């Protein structure tokens, strides 16, 4: 299954282009599922019809679903929920337990799990994800890494601890705090599902991100950083979609200054992103409903299948040249001062602005010193010595 993540700054048209992509892909014969993982859903608003937490058919071969943490939790995570309810039993009524479950972090988890679910059904060839604005999406993409570390280092201990403690504290107030075995089982299942999603997201042949922008300086600047973060987390971006380009018929007049700014922004877009750029012009009216969205898809992709991988190069690449090994990573819009690189054991610790990641090094360079770090925008090159 192909996964297409749509992200970008708020209000640029992520939902609209995600839906256009889905409808376009269906025209090429794919069975498509559109998932909205933004808690402020707008699939329904863009379609002009209601979309809910259950898959809804919106066109031939296209289903849409807005993920609601509450519903998903009710559906799938009974034992974890029961434990929390039990824990809160005396003072909290049901509503409060529900509120707690809507706590930050849960949403990311639920969103990732939904992608897994679409894959599991086997009913779809393409999963188009309409993500939340950039910041939350990055949190979502970072989540599997964090969970993996937690599970590897803690889970066994927690579980062992719980087993040992349970008989000792039976009957005490504190005894309620120690979850039962089925809680751990549920948690482990959940982890394995998220781990599956992680594999899917990091596989550039299956998953690519599409960054949606408008031709405005502030938006382009932020999107360049998003591209860099996606690279850092190992997610391949295969195109940048420029939405709301002024049509050529707009001659100036009141908009002359805006046209000038737009031209500058478009130049920056072409220069900064090392992937194909696709454009679509501002429409003469609001784009609402499948018909208008299909029309948009046609301008955006022409005869191309929107599910195609438009760029095959990976965000992090290992190259060998004249006996030297070089690690390359695409980081547009990032200056050298914002990057920190250290090799530690089998990992490379890379910091880009306020984001950090450990990248596993290929065996051939483990233990070798970093000879040089060079930024040739948008590519960061890390060259290892002999």
């Amino acid at each position: 299954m192909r996964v297409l993540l749509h992200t970008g700054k708020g209000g640029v048209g992520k939902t609209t282009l995600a839906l256009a992509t889905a409808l376009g892909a269906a025209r090429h014969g794919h069975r498509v599922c559109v998932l909205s993982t933004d808690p402020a859903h707008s699939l329904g608003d863009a379609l002009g019809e209601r979309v809910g937490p259950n898959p809804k058919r919106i066109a031939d071969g296209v289903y849409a679903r807005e993920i609601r943490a509450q519903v998903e939790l009710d559906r799938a995570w009974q034992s974890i929920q029961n434990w929390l309810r039990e824990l809160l039993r005396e003072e909290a009524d049901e509503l409060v337990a529900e509120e707690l479950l809507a706590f930050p972090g849960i949403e990311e988890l639920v969103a990732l799990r939904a992608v897994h679910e679409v894959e599991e059904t086997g009913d779809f060839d393409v999963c188009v994800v309409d993500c939340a604005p950039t910041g939350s999406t990055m949190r979502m993409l970072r989540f599997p890494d964090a969970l993996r570390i937690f599970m590897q280092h803690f889970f066994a201990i927690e579980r062992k601890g719980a087993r040992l403690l349970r008989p000792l504290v039976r009957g005490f107030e504190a005894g309620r705090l120690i979850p039962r075995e089925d809680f751990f089982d549920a948690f482990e299942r959940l982890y394995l599902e998220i781990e599956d999603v992680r594999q899917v997201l990091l596989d550039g042949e299956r998953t690519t991100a599409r960054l949606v922008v408008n031709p405005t300086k502030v938006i382009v600047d932020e999107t360049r950083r998003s591209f860099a973060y996606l690279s850092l987390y190992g997610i391949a971006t295969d195109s940048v979609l420029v939405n709301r380009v002024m049509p050529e018929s707009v001659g100036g007049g009141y908009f002359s200054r805006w046209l000038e700014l737009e031209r500058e922004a478009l130049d920056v877009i072409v220069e900064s992103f090392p992937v194909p750029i696709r454009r679509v012009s501002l429409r003469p009216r609001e784009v609402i409903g499948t018909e208008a969205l299909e029309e948009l898809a046609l301008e955006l992709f022409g005869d191309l299948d929107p599910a195609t991988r438009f760029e095959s190069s990976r965000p992090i690449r290992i190259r060998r040249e004249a006996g030297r090994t070089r690690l390359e990573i695409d980081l547009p819009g990032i200056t050298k001062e914002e990057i920190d690189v250290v090799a530690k054991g089998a990992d490379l610790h890379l910091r880009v602005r306020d984001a950090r990641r450990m990248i596993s090094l290929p065996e051939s360079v483990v233990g070798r010193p970093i000879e040089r770090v060079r930024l040739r925008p948008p590519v960061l090159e890390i060259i290892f010595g002999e």
Partner: protein
Amino acid sequence: MRLLLYTGKGGVGKTTTAAATGMLAARRGRRVLVISADAAHSLGDVLCERLSGEPRRLAPGFDALEVDARQVVESHWGRVRAYLVDLLRYQGIDEVIAEELALLPGAEELATLVCVEEWACSGDYDLIIVDCAPTGSTLRLVTLPEVAHGSLRWLLRLQRAAAYVIEPIARGLVGAPIPTGEVFAEADRLFYGTLHRLRARLLSKETSIRIVVTPESMAIDEARRSLTDLCLFQLASDAVIINRMLPAEACREVFFQEWGRMQVERKREVEETFAPLRCLVAPLAEDEILGVEALAEHGEILFGELDPSSCLSESPRLRFERDKAGARVRLPLPGLDRETLDVTRVEDELIIGVAGRRRKIALPAGFSKLDIETVVCRGEELIVSFGARGVDGSTGASQ
């Protein structure tokens, strides 16, 4: 002290509007602080200045800052964080990664709240304006004190009790570090103290929320839902700002004629939907609005004679109630003709029809499984009562 929160869908111009409001108020003699709460900060871009986690003076009476979650977490959550880092390192996790992980989910929202409360208490300002992240996060932000107040407080108490009982046993068995009383004391201060105070502040008359929209249906749809959500948490909104209306001059451009016509319709829709909230209109400018001077000018256009820091209108007192007796929606409907009233629920929306005009109200999550039991009018208030869990589907009732 007055606290204003600007919210709305991404890209509608929250930051520009918030900064313009602040600059105008400062120009009219108030001491103003504008706080950017969106992790993807753009306040600095709009003001054309580099901002940090500390207030920076940009014009007489006008300060601005961008919340630095790391810094706030460090100073208010240091012990809890240090404990988490300890625990992670004990597990053999590298310190750098441990620090990353110890930035708990929700840390950003928490940091913003702490920062707002700190400056609100400082006495340095007459007006604090918060430029919120797009809708989803704003709601998370404003409801966090509520959620924390309700359940975390109980959880923390239990955890503490448990730690005292379990600690001596657990240390021997598991070997992992156990949180000390100090760790809990800090969590207490944050949740009982700071967040509790801020919750009171958000619910008081000194706080208003302003919803920014563009005259486009997707932005309006989202704003309508967020108004319902804000009501659910009894947060008062005092105005809707319709941003980027195409001025007559812009509509002379052939391509934009249809946009112009549609915007007029959308504006009317906003005025009807959000009444009795005051609607302010800002035209699309001919150029980007950057820098303090341009922002102050923009503020003049938006507010005219109005005082930007005053309470611009009383919030509609739509209320959701849920207690042991059941769940109710209360909506003030002055001058209601009962004969023409029609109330239905379609999935998670309550549709209230009055004399052929319909108003859709998004029901909060807890109501979605309930059926309408009774619809009564008491005085000028409509009360829709919901009964026990029913089967799915729509249920109608009218009286």
